[in-house]
């Protein structure tokens, strides 16, 4: 292993990954806290260190549109955005997976307006979790680099776009040591993208993306082609295939580069844990410190980190949470009018499962509200107190909220 270790921000790590993946087309619009990713890539394109086409667009909607066009003709594409920028490209965020285009996008997680807030939470990614992208969350800057490279392999094997999500500022702007693989290592892992589903051949012209009817019908050759529901069922099946492809890809990456990130989920101190703390992203990293603190107090705490949020790893979660007393799910987002999205999904997956734990939810860090390992430990102690008192359901616990001022 001949990695070069440098101290760099999460944004720099993402840019390095796109460069190592030999992306061919980049189209992006700046938005805090994503901007440095694109600035670095633009500088490399300008200097020739990255022989890619950089398309300056006037909006995020156009950024994703350019990626859709480029991916349609078989180019490996990259974009990145946050928050309202992701919202601006929403219809295209839905288009790309329906069109089965293996675009990779980094989402630098930031709060949604209104009100305006440039700081971290995970609401932006959650707002498009249903669109049919693979969604992966990173717990530190090393994982950002490795996962963004892996994302291309996953996307191109499945023909499904992949969203690599990482916390704005907490990771994007925070420097930490990152080992940068060599181009040789990555080339051995990631072959060129050569087989899009789309046919772009002047000698054999095709309509790409025409209107589809409700029912299957015969095409011009008499072959039966799916209606909307069949096409979407195949898309959904590809996401279910991702449940195996994501860990396989992680294992292949480990062979090539020497680092593994656990596939769909990761864990810390999970052995014999009675209370499992669950989160996605850098919150999970902090929870490992929390779990160690709770263990030192005699509380059998452990951490189950969500790496793949979509597809949702139902079987893995049922398997790892069976027999526990409590799963406390920390969301940095809310489905307004209900509860944290990861909490809902996890509780739903546990229903009917043997040995399912009680599932309580906590919301923290909205709009960049600081949350420390001790804050998380206090939340766990509160949850356990309520559980021990016989609570089977519980309102969402808002951490560090100051409504009284």
């Amino acid at each position, binding site marked *: 292993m001949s990695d070069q270790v440098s101290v760099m921000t999460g944004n720099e790590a993402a840019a390095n990954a796109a460069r190592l993946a030999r992306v061919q087309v980049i189209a992006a619009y700046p938005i805090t806290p994503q901007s440095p990713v694109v600035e670095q890539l633009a500088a490399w394109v300008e200097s020739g260190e990255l022989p890619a086409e950089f398309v300056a667009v006037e909006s995020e909607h156009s950024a994703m549109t350019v990626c859709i066009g480029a991916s349609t003709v078989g180019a490996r594409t990259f974009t990145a955005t946050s928050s309202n920028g992701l919202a601006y490209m929403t219809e295209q965020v839905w288009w790309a997976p329906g069109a089965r285009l293996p675009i990779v996008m980094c989402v630098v997680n930031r709060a949604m307006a209104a009100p305006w807030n440039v700081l971290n939470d995970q609401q932006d990614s959650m707002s498009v979790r249903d669109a049919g992208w693979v969604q992966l969350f990173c717990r530190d800057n090393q994982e950002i680099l490795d996962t963004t490279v892996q994302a291309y392999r996953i996307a191109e094997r499945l023909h499904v776009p992949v969203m690599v999500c990482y916390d704005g500022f907490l990771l994007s702007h925070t420097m930490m040591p990152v080992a940068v693989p060599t181009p040789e290592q990555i080339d051995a892992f990631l072959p060129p993208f050569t087989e899009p589903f789309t046919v772009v051949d002047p000698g054999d012209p095709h*309509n790409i993306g025409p209107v589809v009817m409700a029912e*299957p019908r015969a095409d011009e050759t008499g072959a039966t082609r799916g209606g909307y529901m069949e096409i979407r069922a195949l898309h959904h099946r590809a996401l279910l295939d991702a449940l195996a492809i994501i860990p396989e890809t992680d294992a292949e990456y480990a062979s090539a580069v020497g680092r593994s990130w656990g596939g769909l989920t990761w864990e810390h101190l999970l052995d014999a844990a009675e209370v499992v703390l669950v989160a996605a992203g850098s919150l999970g990293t902090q929870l490992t410190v929390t779990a160690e603190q709770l263990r030192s107090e005699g509380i059998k705490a452990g951490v189950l980190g969500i790496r793949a949020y979509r597809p949702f790893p139902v079987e893995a979660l049922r398997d790892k949470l069976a027999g526990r007393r409590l799963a406390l799910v920390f969301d940095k987002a809310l489905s307004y009018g209900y509860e944290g999205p990861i909490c809902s999904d996890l509780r739903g997956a546990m229903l009917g499962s043997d040995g399912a734990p009680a599932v309580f939810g906590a919301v923290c860090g909205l709009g960049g509200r600081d949350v420390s390992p001790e804050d998380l430990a206090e939340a766990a102690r509160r949850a356990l107190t309520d559980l021990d008192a016989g609570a089977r359901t519980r309102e969402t616990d808002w951490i560090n909220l100051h409504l009284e001022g």
Partner: protein
Amino acid sequence: MHARMSARGSGSQMSEISMSRPAVGEAGRTGDWRNNRPVIDAAKCLAVKQGKVTCQICWVYCPDGCIAQGVGPVIDLTYCKGCGICAEECPAGAIEMQPESLHGVCAVDETGEAAR
């Protein structure tokens, strides 16, 4: 028919994306959608009057490509949806949109009428 969705294995021959080769009538007999059909008056059609393939503005503007160039142009009523753009754009005012009820909805001409 209900299908249990599972990963891998149960291969489908259906295409994963919406893609097709260009073909006449690829979207079906869209002529059935019509309420009004375009009728070209040969006496006013510039191509007919000049005896050559000229003007052809209706052919240029048809959004469905169901007008063929000609002296005068020929409208394919199997697919013409009756949008009326050809009538709107004809510089000679030679095209009139006539209700289908005048022509008998059940009897659709395969080649369309170039002249009364």
